[in-house]
């Protein structure tokens, strides 16, 4: 079946996707690395080669260092909080007989389908200093008027963390639920015959058996927190108040410092790649067979 018709058919099918992929993904990716070594005029496409100069300036730029610190802070806090809630809720919803289980799953997943801009809008109503939802609830519990400026220093990064956790819990919960429901029920049955309580079952059976899935999601957490932090900060934080890596990069682009922006992009990319590799290596365990 090697006819010219076959080759023509294959070429016709594969060419459009390959061309689009090449122009809008391969070339730009290549350009990120290439341009990080150049300086480019803000309005003219002339480029001058500057070697590693962009990187040298970058490592002395306190704004960039602060933005990377913010990124790391967000990765650590958002991952830990989201992971804890997601895995606990997933365990409850798969292991316990709960009325309205489906209802809870549907509700918890809702933030994931909303645009980050919408979430930023919702949280601007929550964080409003005077008569916002959060401050009014806190005042109720405290018995006096509380006026926390959530979107100002120093609380602004906390407000980003809360919004990001709110958005992410449902997504990871659904992911953990899928792998937890694949754990055979008789394992739990024999464990409870042996007198193992819920907590024991969770740590001795559930966690080890879904470990591969947890490792995958840890990489996910790192990569997606870096990206989502950018989307959240860009939509809900005043310009330059609490930059994260990628929003710093975007701010340089707005200034017309394209080579400098791309150098930041390269560093953030290498950072996310290295961190994922390290975490992936550190969490390596012998896989258990179900």
């Amino acid at each position, binding site marked *: 079946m090697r006819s010219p018709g076959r080759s023509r*058919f294959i070429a016709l099918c594969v060419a459009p*996707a390959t061309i689009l992929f090449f122009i809008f993904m391969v070339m730009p990716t290549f350009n990120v690395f290439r341009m990080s070594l150049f300086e480019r005029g803000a309005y003219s496409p002339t480029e001058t080669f500057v070697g590693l100069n962009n990187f040298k300036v970058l490592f002395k730029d306190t704004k960039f260092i602060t933005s990377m610190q913010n990124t790391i802070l967000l990765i650590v806090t958002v991952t830990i909080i989201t992971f804890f809630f997601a895995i606990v809720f997933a365990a409850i919803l798969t292991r316990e007989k709960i009325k309205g289980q489906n209802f809870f799953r549907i*509700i918890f*997943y*809702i933030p994931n*389908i909303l645009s980050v801009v*919408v979430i930023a809008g919702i949280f601007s109503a929550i964080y409003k200093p005077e008569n916002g939802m959060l401050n*009014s609830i806190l005042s109720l519990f405290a018995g006096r008027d509380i006026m926390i400026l959530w979107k100002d220093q120093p609380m602004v990064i906390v407000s980003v963390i809360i919004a990001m956790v*709110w958005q992410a819990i449902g997504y990871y919960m659904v992911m953990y639920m*899928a792998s937890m429901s694949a754990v055979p029920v008789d394992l739990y049955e024999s464990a409870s015959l042996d007198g193992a309580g819920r907590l024991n079952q969770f740590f001795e059976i559930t966690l080890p058996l879904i470990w591969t899935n947890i490792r995958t999601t840890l990489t996910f957490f790192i990569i997606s927190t870096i990206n989502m932090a950018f989307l959240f900060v860009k939509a809900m934080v005043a310009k330059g108040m609490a930059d994260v890596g990628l929003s710093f990069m975007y701010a340089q682009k707005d200034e017309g410092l394209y080579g400098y922006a791309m150098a930041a992009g390269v560093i953030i990319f290498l950072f996310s790649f290295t961190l994922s590799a390290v975490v992936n290596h550190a969490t390596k365990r012998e896989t258990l067979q179900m």
Partner: protein
Amino acid sequence: MKKGNSADTLYKAFIYVVLITLAVVIIVPVAWVFLASIKQNSEFYGNPWTLPASLYWQNFVDAWTAAKMGSYMLNSVIVTVLSLVILLVVALPAAYCLSRFRFRGGRFLNTAFMAGLFINVNYIVVPIFLMLRDWDSWMNYLFRLNNVFMNNLVTLSVVYAATALPFTIYLLSGYFATLPHDFEEAAYIDGAGYGAAMVRVIFPMAQPSILTIILFNFLSFWNEYIISMTLMNSATGQKTLPVGLLNLMQASQSAAQYGRLYAGLVLVMLPTLILYMCVQKKLTQGMTVGGLKG
């Protein structure tokens, strides 16, 4: 076992409290926005927990016309539909050939698209922006044309479709690879060509996967705002809904026009919420199909 029973009830009650708390934390802010969208501006200065005094639909009229959310919505519909069409037309045949035919360069392309899964749009948006702007200055130099590629809904759709290709091809290939080759053999014996066998025999069978792809990409195209903001950068030009909402958010904060802001929020999230309510099962299941099974 008797002693365990009362502890069990307590534990169950605790679980319900925790579950309901999280549900409330998620539902209440969303519902609040819906209620706030029909409040009058004066109602935003008192207690935030009061119900709307009356149904003040004027907010939606203001958002739709004065804040131009109506025309932004049209733009978003055009971009989303067009990107989905381009994506399906381009990705379906490619995924089919890549997963079911062995040909020179096939393995290389498969690896390349797989590697594409790790390229995130946020990193490459600046080079894409510069490339399109350079193309525009060439068009201006050669033909005296302005804004051929930038500020163009079609370009935006093409970029959306192109950046969704790796994930889509990965998902479709995974499905196509599971089908036995007998299907095409039978079609060829009946005299069908390669194209006919693909379109009439294989694609109909892939309907569930195609639906999953449409769902996920609809959500990501409809909600996307970074690429849109970067490539549609003219202050007076067309915008998609999320970018328009972002501008509205900044404008209403300073002008204290809260009503139309919340009406705008409702306009952006209502389509996705309705879609979600219709297909939520498919969506949460499809997520695990995306290759993330432990």
